[in-house]
């Protein structure tokens, strides 16, 4: 909402009802309620003696000096902290140092206290722990409530989420509730030396253009951060943090979305975002048979197989293995692109790979513009030789 009532702070004095020029505020159960006639004019915000009425407009002109500390929102899946959370800590550590402020990890979940030590050993100065049976993994509404409430109370300068499916679903709700800006899928974060603003760099236009974005007047400054790009710090055993429990006040409405069933078997579990090596194929692979060859190479390298949209559309690989703008964004140490032209929609999902090998018959294929090692040849000749050479090397050891 652009203007809303913090129910807990409302004294029920009815001043706002009279202050509203549109008659958009009424009382229910002794509390003020703003209905859709509201045009966010802000008259009620000024009239309220307890500060219970908040608006986005006020947040937009935040007194930035009141906001301190860098927060990272930890993500657990299947009862484990995800590797991208440790990357966020690594990145957040650098930002906190540049600001000379604390790095705080936010752990919200059903049972997450046990991860506090991990957070500390990977760089956190403070760990905020929020536990509640309603904070199930992957549930946006309760997590949005918990994180928003905590941020309103503690006023962090920066809040970072991982740009995982869950993070990208949760962060926008938190930003909307706080009335602050949010930058999606950042690949680089830094602090402006002069203004101390967070500089958030992200790819746009399928990775062909980079944009650096900042929020000079709104706090907290929020981003989702692409997994696989930032570096986790090595574990520092015994490193300590302040562990602070925060109250969670979930409401019945936070359980509006019910998960009925998770059909795991339907899809083979592929999480390309955490793969270290990816062997990827495109139109040049030509057939499902052709992909068998790539699977063989992947098996030798301990890699995952992926591909372009064309490979998915032709049914050579499943949709969850598509890399690119409408597929997954990956960031492996090694990406071997076989028979892939390197269209911008594909590049946007893999240009961040640390080493890119391209095998393509067309010397002018755009993929060669971003490759580290260019193999201008027929993949059906090179890949079998490559498999043989890797196997031979394996035998030597």
């Amino acid at each position, binding site marked *: *909402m*652009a203007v809303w009532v913090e129910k807990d702070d409302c004294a029920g004095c009815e001043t706002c009802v009279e202050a509203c020029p549109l008659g958009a505020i009424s009382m229910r159960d002794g509390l003020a309620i703003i209905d859709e006639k509201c*045009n*966010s*004019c802000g008259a009620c915000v000024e009239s309220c003696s307890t500060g219970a009425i908040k608006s*986005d407009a006020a947040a*937009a002109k935040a007194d930035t000096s009141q906001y301190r500390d860098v927060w990272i929102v930890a993500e657990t899946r299947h009862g484990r902290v995800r590797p991208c959370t440790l990357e966020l800590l690594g990145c957040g550590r650098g930002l906190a140092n540049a600001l000379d402020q604390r790095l705080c990890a936010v752990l919200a979940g059903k049972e997450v206290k046990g991860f506090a030590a991990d957070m500390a050993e990977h760089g956190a100065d403070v760990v905020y722990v929020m536990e509640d049976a309603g904070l199930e993994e992957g549930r*946006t*509404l309760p997590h*949005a409530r918990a994180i928003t409430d905590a941020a309103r109370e503690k006023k962090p300068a920066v809040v970072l989420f991982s740009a995982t499916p869950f993070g990208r*679903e*949760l962060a*926008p*709700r938190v*930003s*909307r509730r706080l*009335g*602050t*800006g*949010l930058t*999606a*899928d950042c690949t680089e974060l830094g602090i402006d030396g002069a203004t101390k603003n967070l*500089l958030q760099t992200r790819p746009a*236009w399928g990775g*062909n253009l*980079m944009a650096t*974005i*900042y929020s000079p007047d*709104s706090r907290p400054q929020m981003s989702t951060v692409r997994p696989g790009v930032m570096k986790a710090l090595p574990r520092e055993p015994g490193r300590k943090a302040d562990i602070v429990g925060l109250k969670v006040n979930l409401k019945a409405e936070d359980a*509006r*979305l*019910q998960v*009925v*069933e998770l*059909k*795991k078997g339907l*899809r083979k*579990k592929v*999480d390309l975002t955490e793969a270290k090596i990816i062997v990827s194929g495109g139109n040049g692979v030509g057939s499902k048979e052709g992909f068998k060859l790539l699977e063989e190479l992947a098996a030798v*390298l301990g890699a995952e197989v992926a591909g372009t949209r064309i490979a998915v559309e032709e049914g050579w690989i499943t949709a969850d293995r598509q890399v690119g*703008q*409408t597929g997954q964004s990956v960031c492996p*140490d*090694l990406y071997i692109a076989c028979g892939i032209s390197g269209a*911008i929609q594909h590049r946007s999902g893999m240009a961040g790979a640390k*080493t890119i*090998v391209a095998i393509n018959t067309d010397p002018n294929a*755009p993929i060669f*513009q971003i*490759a580290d*090692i*260019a*193999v*201008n040849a027929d993949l059906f*000749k*090179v890949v079998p*030789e490559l498999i043989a*050479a*890797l196997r031979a*090397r394996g035998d030597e050891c």
Partner: protein
Amino acid sequence: MYRDARLGVAELDVIVLVKQVPNTAEVKIDPRTGTLMREGVESIINPDDLHALEAGLRLRESHGGRVTAVSMGPPQAMDALREALGMGADAAVLLTDRAFAGADTLATSYTLGKCIRKLGRFDLVVAGHQAIDGDTAQIGPQVAEYLDVPQVIRATRLEVRDGELHAERTHEDGVEAVRCALPALVTVTREANKPRYPYIPRLMAAFDPNAPIKTWGPKDIGADERLIGLKGSPTQVQKTFTPKLEKKVEKLSGQPAEMARALVGRLKERRLA
């Protein structure tokens, strides 16, 4: 939702969010300068939004009701809405005004949210998962938050039964079946369905001045001028640049077997194999 207790039917009011975007498939990179070549690139409906329209139309077909397409954009975004009518939407609203320009996702979600409130009742808002120019995927959840309704992101199947939304969404390690009360918001990807083509007579009719397309500005939706467009956008672009292509490409040459051996050598040096 309109309910007819006697007939046991419930009609659905569906709002579909449609964005007009440049066809990035046609955007080429200048191989010398590494910049985008945008000249003459046509505008299209954002691909995911075609699936959102299809999802909305199918719900209307099984339940009755209305599909209203809403777009915020420059006047030429009217073409996207005409196409939506051509596909079968009942009505459309184009939010266009200079004051809307320069909006980031917070200001866009406020504007779309205000418009939906102004339209009155709705049971379901359907949006595309992400737009191909901005790639943020933030508008769906932010509009859901503004409207204070639950969201199903990346829905692949949706169905309304007994006044409840039953949906499936893709998950990193499976498909999750979820259920929630209406009203709600869903975003869809191209796994959801196969969009229909516009029906030509209907598309032609959408060019008629009496076609059911409203053009609204900030006043029409009661928007606060401080919260829309550039003014209402907390994020600002400091600079844009083309990613440095400083990588030194190493070209391997020779017979396939030689190249393969050289490649294994390089991977070994980089501790990748």
